[in-house]
């Protein structure tokens, strides 16, 4: 796996996670601090299928999609909806997702030890790279992660712009109150956004072990990248998450690599510093993210 390939693979996964975060932020107005653990949950679903049923992780992408979606729905229904009904503040909801993240960490940590006890194989710390193969001279994960993105984008496009449900979904994202007056059930759109958020993260989690080592606490580390990507994009735009995901994902890998050529290999562990700097610079210069820039006006002035 060359550096550029690795950067693209990583960026693909960051895009999935950032889009997941943005979707729920748009409908529920709460940044989900458990998004990283959603991904690790997907990784554990894939690991379980691999260890117990010998199913290759690439084949378990649909299963991870489903389980991830269920986790998303569970998060909304059991944790957030009761609090929203009691008109809890945004900070309360954020603390709730932080608590949910800790619960997920506990559950996955316990499960990982149980799984390694049952299968007598590592589950507390694992990687899928040995299960990958070469396709047309490239690692297969490059194709699979890109294919996942393409299918996701196509699916989202058809769903949002070509179906009646999509119109309702977009309406309730733009203005929930007005949408409700027009007879759209905002509850359904929220539930659906949480399903989608969870399932995108589940797929990302299924593929993440091909790129990096997974431990139960991995979610706490990748959350920095996810937040940076979403904020660069503007936090409330799916297109922004797509842009931000690629910018942050690729620069995190490439800039760290370039720096490692100058300062030596020990710089490689500080990749998250790059994400953080991008995040801070974005907040200082364009706090509302890339989508808040008036691209048309810019382009108009150039041409």
């Amino acid at each position: 796996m060359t550096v550029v390939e690795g950067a693209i693979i990583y960026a693909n996964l960051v895009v999935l996670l950032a889009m997941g975060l943005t979707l729920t932020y748009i409908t529920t107005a709460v940044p989900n601090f458990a998004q990283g653990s959603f991904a690790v949950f997907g990784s554990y679903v894939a690991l379980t299928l691999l260890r117990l049923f010998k199913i290759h992780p690439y084949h378990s992408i649909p299963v991870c999609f489903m389980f991830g979606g269920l986790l998303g729905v569970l998060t909304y229904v059991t944790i957030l909806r009761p609090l929203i009904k009691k008109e809890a503040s945004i900070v309360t909801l954020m603390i709730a997702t932080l608590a949910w993240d800790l619960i997920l960490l506990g559950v996955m940590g316990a499960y990982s030890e149980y799984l390694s006890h049952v299968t007598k194989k590592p589950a507390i710390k694992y990687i899928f790279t040995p299960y990958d193969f070469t396709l047309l001279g490239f690692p297969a994960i490059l194709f699979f992660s890109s294919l996942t993105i393409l299918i996701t984008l196509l699916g989202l496009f058809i769903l949002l712009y070509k179906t009646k449900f999509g119109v309702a979904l977009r309406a309730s994202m733009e203005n929930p109150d007005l949408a409700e007056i027009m007879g759209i059930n905002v509850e359904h759109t929220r539930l659906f956004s949480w399903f989608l958020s969870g399932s995108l993260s589940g797929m990302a989690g299924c593929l993440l072990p091909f790129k990096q080592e997974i431990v139960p606490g991995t979610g706490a580390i990748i959350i920095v990248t996810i937040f940076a990507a979403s904020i660069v994009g503007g936090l409330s735009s799916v297109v922004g998450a797509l842009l931000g995901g690629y910018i942050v994902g690729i620069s995190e890998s490439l800039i760290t690599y370039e720096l490692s050529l100058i300062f030596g290999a020990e710089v490689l562990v500080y990749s998250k510093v790059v994400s953080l700097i991008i995040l801070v610079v974005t907040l200082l210069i364009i706090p509302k993210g890339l989508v808040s820039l008036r691209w048309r006006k810019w382009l108009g002035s150039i041409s």
Partner: protein
Amino acid sequence: MAWEHILTEILLWFGLYSIVAISLNIEYGYAGIPNFGRALAVLIGAIAVGGITNRILIAIFNVTGSFAVASGIVKTTVNEIVANNPIFGISLMLISLVIAGILGVIVGAIFILPSAKLSEDYLAITLLAISEVAFMVSYYNPEIIGGYYGVSTPDFFAFVSGEYRVFVFMGVILFVALIVYLFAERLLNTPYGRILKAMRENEDVVKSYGRDIMFLRIKTVAIGSGIASLAGALYSMFTANVIASSFSRVEWTFYPFLMILLGGLGNNRGVLMGVLAFVVAKVLLTTYKYEIRAALNLPFEAVWLEYILFGVVAILILYYKPEGLIKEKPIVTKPIRERKSFK
């Protein structure tokens, strides 16, 4: 295990967590700033002891060698001096605390800067991200506080014999916690303290009275971080060995949030009760983790159970008792007290 041991452990952690929880209460309970990066300030306190005081001592005693080796040598030298000269040890402790406080204030003020103008969700995200990255860097970089190997620091109470050391530390930590508590109580009943609560309730009103929200936020997080940093310094002095991995988000950001939610936001007495309840549960869980594992026949470590338990408790509090054990009371200012006594 002996009950005296459990009791000291509870009091020690009660003191440490009281300091952190009160600092967070000033920021979140009073001022409504959701500082999801509390752990950073505590880590700064540890850096003040393990990274700065240690280096000063290394320079004074002119010890050569790598940071880790030199710290070990300095530890032995300083411990010998302190054993015969208690005043030297106590002044070292005070200097370390001052350094920790100042460094905490500076870092707190800088670390809120990028997000001081933003809404609370952006604020929380940024603070969490900065804290998480700082944790990671100090874990991977052995030059700051020894990274994953950790670094040993001198025992500033080497003049106390081993069996009483823990009690002396317990006393010092509880004393600092008491001062912090009194300070926070006084702070609340000043014009500044009242403007913080006003800011929490409605930022626009505060703005319309000509107050700068950004400046208020920077000042508050600076104060809060300075206080929390003391806890990190005290903890490092007590263990006499700093390891970056013990300053995780769960232990120093999430748990303090849980404690102030449990006790009651904006209310220091409630927060102390919350801390006590949490610490008792935590110390018992840690002390009896093997027994719990054996009794429940768990196929995994009890620490995961602890995470699940405290996560569930936090959500239950948010849902059933968002005001905490003791509800916040209105501030009794001097004119109000006088009017009450007239009636």
